[in-house]
């Protein structure tokens, strides 16, 4: 019986690893030949072959930055509240349930909500900013959860040591608890970044499916062709893959999609690996005697 269980469980583990390696291998081998500087930097072509993914790649990173600028303060703030201030009562349970429901919403539903609120009601149209807000809704539960868990994992003795010195609760949180929880929070933030980077459904109707011809010499925040303008439509890499695959007109549409998929998967992998590496690095940095 024990032997059978061991064999079955090992097979399941092998199946998981096999699927992952197969998937990665397939996507990477399919897209490998497209990975060159020209493909990564040039704009897409609507009719002819040879278009690149430059603006989409830029949009993905810019959207990531915008989303994190909004989502991180909200998520960390809410996490601090849940871990340190929320009293143990019905209301707190209600908040916790709301966070759970929010985290289980399908991303296409979040996208449609974004279309309704951040695109139509605000009158902005398809913009980067609408996309960032939709992705904030999408990632907030994860960030709150990660922050709360990281704060709760800080030993109680650390908190008491500071309180016993006559330090206020808030300053104890800022100078002892948050630094100790930082590696965990960072890991969560980087994992959330991976989700933002790879998200398509929530962006179709918020950040839009087109990108203006970006002028990378124009840094004004309100020019329609400026890459930094947050109130312009911005098709991201993941959305581009979906669009090229479903309605691409160019003869090399399949090639472009393969290449973009490879770039996307490499980026998401990098986020995940760097999350682990960065978390341990920060932890070491924080705990050794830096001054």
């Amino acid at each position, binding site marked *: 019986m024990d032997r059978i269980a061991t064999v079955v469980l090992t097979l399941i583990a092998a199946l998981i690893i096999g699927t992952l390696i197969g998937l990665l291998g397939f996507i990477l081998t399919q897209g490998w030949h497209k990975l060159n500087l020209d493909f990564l930097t040039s704009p897409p072509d609507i009719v002819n072959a040879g278009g690149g993914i430059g603006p989409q790649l830029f949009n993905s990173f810019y959207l990531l930055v915008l989303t994190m600028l909004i989502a991180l303060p909200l998520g960390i703030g809410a996490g601090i509240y849940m871990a340190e201030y929320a*009293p*143990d009562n019905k209301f707190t349970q209600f908040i916790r349930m709301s966070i759970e429901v929010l985290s289980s919403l399908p991303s296409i539903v979040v996208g449609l909500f974004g279309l309704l609120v951040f695109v139509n009601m605000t009158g902005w149209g398809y913009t980067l900013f609408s996309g960032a807000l939709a992705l904030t809704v999408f990632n907030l539960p994860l960030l709150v959860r990660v922050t709360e868990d990281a704060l709760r994992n800080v*030993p109680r*003795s*650390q908190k*008491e*040591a*500071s*309180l*016993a*010195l*006559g*330090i*206020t609760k808030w*300053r104890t949180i800022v*100078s*002892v608890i948050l630094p*100790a929880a930082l590696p965990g929070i960072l890991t969560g933030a980087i994992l959330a970044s991976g989700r933002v980077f790879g998200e398509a459904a929530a962006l179709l109707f918020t950040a839009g499916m087109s990108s203006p011809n970006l002028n990378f010499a124009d840094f004004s925040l309100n020019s329609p062709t400026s890459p930094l303008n947050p109130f312009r439509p911005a098709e991201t890499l993941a959305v581009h893959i979906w669009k090229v695959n479903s309605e691409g007109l160019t003869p090399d549409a399949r090639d472009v999609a393969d290449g973009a998929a490879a770039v996307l998967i490499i980026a998401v992998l990098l986020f995940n690996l760097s999350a682990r590496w960065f978390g341990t690095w920060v932890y070491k940095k*924080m*705990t*050794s*005697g*830096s*001054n």
Partner: protein
Amino acid sequence: MSVISVRELNLFYGNKQALYHINLDVEPNSITALIGPSGCGKSTFLRTLNRMNDSVPNTKITGVVKVFDEDIYSSSVEVERLRKNIGMVFQHPNPFPKSIYDNVTYGPRLHGMMDRHKLDEIVENSLKAAALWDEVKDVLKKPATGLSGGQQQRLCIARALAVQPQVILMDEPTSALDPISTAKIEELLEELKDTYTIVIVTHNMQQAARISDKTAFFLNGELVEFDQTPTIFQNPRDKRTEDYITGRFG
């Protein structure tokens, strides 16, 4: 005049009463030991003296606790000022994951001291007072977590001293340490007594007998007997005290 004066103190966790009618006075520059079996309320009592029980939900307190003649549970008392004046050392050494230097300066810096020279001075004085200076003076920038358990506990004492308290509460400070480290801390307490008033919880009766001036024996949330330490150990009035110190239970 007594430094700490407790009258008719009752403490409840929800519906469960943890302390019953405690009356106790602590004299300046003395060591008062709180002894008793596990769960007798001695640590709970210690934590009422600097209001560390505040953060435990559903705690209710009746009676009066006065420190330097001020009722510390009156609504006008600022709990941060109270705790600055009453330092605490815990059962397990709990240095911050920072350097030795930063551990000692943590309190003073957060209370607004920015002067580099003054901070250096505080570090040296506090570490000397905690009998740790000679061992760490060349590695002040090294992480505190690299120190031995006994050194960490003396660092925690130095950290508490750095904010210049008048009273130091200690919650079984040597129970996690080896005998040599324990002896060092006991020796240290004798010296600290000249400057500070010390209240120490210990489940080690020999320790109480060795270092304390007065001993309080707690049992099931009651203060059974409180007297000069030699009296408690050689001539206790209460049968329960005698049973406990002769090892019949606990």
